[in-house]
């Protein structure tokens, strides 16, 4: 993502103080803990012009749930306005159509992470960017279904979680790789596919788009 953004002329900073957005605590029913993490995150990114995340889930947490957790003061409103998931940033802020032609001839399946899709309303952006690099984004009947990660859900109810990943894997069309804007989903799908020995390649959207530029 750093390479990709620099390639587009963006001055990238990575504040060393950053840690976690607080979503695990929030989803587990511990709002006070989530609130402290939100406060921390607010401080760390106070000076950034934009905050770009390679994770729809964390971006969704910050944009949709920080106001409820911390209150709707100016600091929060400002962070919400400045926070973007990567593909959303590339399309809506930078208005990127094509990054290159490095994915020409590649067949790609796109997994819509739940929070990018339903909380942020990011749906066409990643697909357009992949297609803009020449990739053929292949229709996949389960592309909008949850992969079964769900943070602690995958550890608390591992059998149901794995069955959900299986549904994704079993319906995959023949592709060169699967990509998504969420590390959690990719961790889940990769772990399950490896356990089953399916040999499917999973690549983060940032890496896929960088291939689109570089190859």
């Amino acid at each position, binding site marked *: 993502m750093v390479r990709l953004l620099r390639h587009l002329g963006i001055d990238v900073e990575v504040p060393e103080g950053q840690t976690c957005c607080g979503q695990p605590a929030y989803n587990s*029913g511990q709002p006070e803990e989530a609130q402290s993490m939100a406060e921390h995150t607010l401080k760390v990114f106070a000076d950034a012009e934009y905050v770009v995340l390679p994770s729809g889930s964390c971006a969704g947490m910050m944009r949709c749930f920080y106001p409820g957790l911390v209150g709707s003061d100016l600091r929060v409103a400002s962070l919400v306005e400045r926070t973007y998931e990567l593909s959303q940033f590339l399309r809506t802020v930078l208005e990127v159509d094509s990054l290159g032609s490095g994915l020409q001839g590649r067949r790609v399946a796109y997994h819509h992470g739940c929070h990018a899709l339903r909380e942020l309303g990011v749906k066409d952006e990643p697909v357009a960017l992949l297609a803009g690099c020449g990739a053929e984004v292949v229709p996949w009947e389960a592309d909008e279904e949850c992969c079964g990660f769900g943070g602690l859900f*995958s550890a608390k109810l591992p059998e149901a979680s794995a069955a959900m990943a299986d549904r994704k894997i079993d319906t995959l069309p023949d592709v060169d790789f699967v990509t998504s804007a969420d590390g959690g989903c990719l961790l889940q799908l990769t*772990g399950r596919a490896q356990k089953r020995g399916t040999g499917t390649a999973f690549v983060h959207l940032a890496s896929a788009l960088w291939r689109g530029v570089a190859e």
Partner: protein
Amino acid sequence: MSFSGPTNYRRESAKAIRDKPEVRDSVTAATRTFDAHRVHAWGQIDADRWRDWARDVKTHVLTHLDQYLEQAERQLTSNGTRVHWAESADDALTILGEIVREDGVESAVKAKSMLSEELGVNRHLEGLGVHVRETDLGEYIIQLLDEPPSHIVGPAIHRSVDDCRKLFHERLGTPLDADPDELADAARDALRAEFLAADLGISGGNFLAADSGTIALIENEGNIRLSTSLPRVHVAFVGIEKLVPRLEDVSAFLQLTSRAATGQPIGNFVSLIQGPRRSDEVDGPEEVHVVLVDNGRTRLLADEAAWEALRCVRCGACLNICPVYRQTGGHPYGWTYSGPIGAIIAPGMLGLEEALPLPHASSLCGACVDVCPVRIPIPELLVHWREKAVEQGLTPKVETVGLKAYTKMAQRPGLFSAAGAVLRHVPLGLGGRALPVLGGWMQERSAPKSSPKSFLQMWKEGIE
């Protein structure tokens, strides 16, 4: 066979996934079809506006419930309907028992009613020596199999056509290769005799219009019409949350519910019942009883957030879209209402301690909130119950203490990255299974391969 209770959710869901892969196939196929029909049916109307309206009407009723209940009682009574109040399932069953005794009931036919499942009506009637027959095709199938419903709208959703062929072959003598129409015909023939013989018809109520005391029922098979009009006594069990202010509200609610449930513009049959047979009418029951049931509903209503779940019209749309529900069907949830809606009403109606696994039976993917016709904020309410569980000390210590420690670290970036560096060198493949949280993860997945360096290390060294 009855439900084993929500506390066994993990064990039961794991068992269903392991031992009954065919259930997952049946449920996934059927729910995907239901949902595709919903999408189509919502595309034909201004669904967002309908849903806003339905949410607002239901919210209005729930915030003025006492007034509407009193009005409904007055109207029902003036229609000649006898009104009973049941605070608990036991109360409801006692009332039913008295009606059975007073009216000399020997056999009953039942229209599909989730509330009657919640109350345990069949078992109670059998205990009183009353022959009871489910007349909805899906309910008939599971009654013959002695199974509880697996879905709010399609109770036999976990069963394939082949299962039904075998069952009907054994019980009704149909050929083993009978097509679905032949199976339905056989059920119709068997049920016809039951309808004609029954003294009592039992139904639920999709809606109860307070202004006119009208019980509104929606269905596809005509069995509700028969159950509520052929026997001499009709008893309708109606949850107190089923009220709507006016008869004219019912029209839109019936359509929205049908569109959400099965994608039909409206069910094949709508029954609007306003009391027993009148002197100038040729059919209808001699007696109509409405049992207004609480059974945990006022407790749910008292919750500052979860009361919104009482808007539910039992369309099953949230089950149909739920990726967790699709893996197992409804049985592992351990009680009448499964899926996302079951998980948010169970803690209020049964008590949080008993229902606790269910609010965790969700990845919080949020698909349900987009399909709810009355806009219940389901994911928010799942988190709400998780929060209450932490407050009440019902969550495992390893989880709450673990997250507290994690929070402390997350506010000290140095410590956070140091911990990351340590974890990066733990061979998860070997030791992971023993860790409290990672044990379940490692059971179903391969260990992720850690990058030798963290992103922050790479950043400090310079990314080219």
